[in-house]
């Protein structure tokens, strides 16, 4: 154990206090309660106490438990996956585009597949924006095409190609049965198949999207809950500039 290793804290250092709740497919009773405690023990919880249990009608029992988790983590040793960049504000982004890219940037966004949750994408793209930050439509140096909800991947790709998009922005909110994973993967593959994958900055977002998941699925970046438009703007223009400098993009068009 290193000094940096930490455990949860309840009311004194290193007490390991954790709360858990789960349902077991068992009728309520001492046997089920013991199973709950045993599960807690397997999770590394000492002094495992079942403080509440409730038969859910059928062969299910709900448990709330408290105990002391014996696991430790060393936060310093963790790799924290995230988009690492300096966030520019509205003015700075526009100035950056004028000075470094020297042309308007075209963004195409959509909620793809069967997903109809537009609020998150709109928070990034629409004029009024989110959490006090203007949306990207408001940026004079951006042109934004927001295709809205339930857009088939094919339609999105066709439009991006047709318009010569600099960046494609996809929102995926429904994640049950991992429907988003297949859908996002197919979009990346389609862009690849059309031969345009390298010509666009491809980003996705949604409440269950993390940057490393996005990268794993073949995206340039991913944005989770609380993302502001300026963060996304900063990332996109920075990435476009990086590519311009690297000679992969920009001059060619």
């Amino acid at each position, binding site marked *: 154990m290193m000094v940096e290793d930490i455990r949860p804290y309840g009311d004194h250092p290193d007490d390991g206090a954790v709360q858990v709740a789960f349902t077991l497919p068992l009728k309520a009773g001492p046997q089920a309660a013991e199973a709950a405690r045993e599960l807690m023990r397997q999770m590394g919880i000492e002094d495992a106490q079942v403080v509440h249990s409730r038969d859910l*009608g059928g062969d*299910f029992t*709900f448990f709330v438990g408290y105990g002391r988790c014996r696991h430790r983590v060393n936060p310093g040793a963790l790799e924290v996956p995230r988009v690492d960049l300096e966030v520019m504000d509205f003015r700075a982004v526009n100035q950056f585009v004028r000075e470094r890219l020297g042309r308007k940037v075209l963004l195409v966004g959509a909620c793809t597949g069967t997903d109809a949750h537009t*609020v998150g994408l709109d928070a990034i793209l629409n004029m009024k924006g989110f959490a006090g930050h203007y949306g990207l439509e408001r940026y004079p140096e951006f042109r934004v095409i927001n295709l809205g909800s339930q857009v088939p991947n094919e339609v999105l790709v066709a439009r991006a190609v047709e318009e010569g998009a600099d960046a494609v922005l996809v929102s995926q909110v429904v994640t049950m049965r991992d*429907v988003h994973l297949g859908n996002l993967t197919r979009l990346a593959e389609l862009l690849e198949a059309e031969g345009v994958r390298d010509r666009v900055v491809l980003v996705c977002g949604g409440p269950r999207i993390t940057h490393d998941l996005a990268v794993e699925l073949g995206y340039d970046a991913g944005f989770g809950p609380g993302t502001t438009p300026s963060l996304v703007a900063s990332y996109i223009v920075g990435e476009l500039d990086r590519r311009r400098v690297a000679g992969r993009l920009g001059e060619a068009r």
Partner: protein
Amino acid sequence: MTGRPGGLPGCLELDPGLVRSAREDARVIVDEIMDYVRHHTTTSMERAALRLAGINGVDGEGTPLPNRLVDQIGSELGHGASYWLFNAVAVTGRDPGEVARAVADEGLDLIRLPGADPVKVRELGRAAARRAMDHISSRRREREDFVDRLGESPQPWLYVIVATGNIHEDVVQAQSAARMGADVIAVIRSTGQSLLDYVPHGATTEGYAGTYATRENFRIMREALDAVSEELGRYVRQVNYASGLCMPEIAALGAMERLDMMLNDAMYGILFRDLSPRRTLVDQYLSRRISARAGHIINTGEDNYLTTDDAYEAAHTVIASQFINEEFALQAGLAREQIGLGHAFQMDPDLTDGLLWEIAQAALVRALFPLSPIKFMPPTKYKTGNIFRSHLQDCLFNLVGVLTGQSIQLLGMPTEAIHTPFVADRYLALENARYVMNNARDLGREVVLRPGGRIQERAVRVLEGAAGMLGEVRAIGLWEALEQGMFAGVRRPRDGGKGLDGVVPREPGYFNPFLAHLEGVEGDG
């Protein structure tokens, strides 16, 4: 307004003249649309007729037979699919199911068949309609018998959803919920089903964040709920969605499988699914005619306005839409007792005095529609992964529900922002509702609004906003209002949207004995 509610909503000092004029505006608005409706049919409307005629099943490719037939009828649909079907019945001597099978399996072509005696054809159709309607009525009586025999809970009814994607798992969850006190079980549909232009077939186990609405799934769930109703000595209701591109077809299936409620909104598909306004408004009519006969309670979707718009700013749009939905429903023969107008608790939790505005709104809805089984939707928009605060938001929601006498309380889940409900989430939600509603049972009868106070004033202001909006819509017509984005802030061109190609002008002599039968006996709710 037919009555005046008791309790807290009774304290609102609303101007009856304003309420009357709002209703009058809604009537004029709806009249114009109904004129269009009466001259058109849709693929889905015709498929609903075929379903009522007894056509089920799928072809070898899995295409539902009603779709096969309507596709085959093609440009001749304006005469009514029933015309072609019963012509074939007359010519072949087979029953509708056999005719459909023959189309699928033997290449029978309905259009190319010789024309039988039109009187005979119509007579066959009308007889089929009578049988269909008898069947629906008998299922309705089944429900009434259940309720008479087993009883039902006092309102607000506790309504929870199941959404595992697998009908068999849904059954497990639904029965657990009923045992824990749920009065109403809704099986949420799979993401994207509303855009399907057919109703999937058979028992399904692979939905996304919902389970496909199919006739077999309806049947399986009804059977399970009947069993648990018997077990509990209390009738447990079942809900699904007569919504999307198959709205009337699903209403028909729901009528035949004794569903008790149907999510069904005249404008929801237009606004929130970008469905064709033409298509949707035609479809809603037949679907509501069917629900009227089936004794369904419909649930309108005004709650949805507030998931994008602001609950405080856009409160009047909810009321305006409710007047319109009410009028559409009345014109489709639904009794007021069947018109479950919807609204939702979506005030920003950080809004000072938000609870006051929510009480004003809930009381207003209750006061304006005293006979309607109002459906109150829970906070969702401002839910976060903070399950503890989420539980409190639902606590105040339940309080407002019981305080203002809402009829159907769709329970909020602590995990709303995370996943479709786990079995234990439903337990917590039901416990929440029961705790609050029992503790505050008579609160709405024991406190009154301060006369001239801010809650009263807010309700009056919202009503005025709604009445003003209805006046505007009346002036330009609903088609135009939709185009201008007056509802939910989205612009919907009347000739745009998904499913427009399924709208067909009725030809002279259009034959739909089912619709005719339903229209013959109005207002039997």
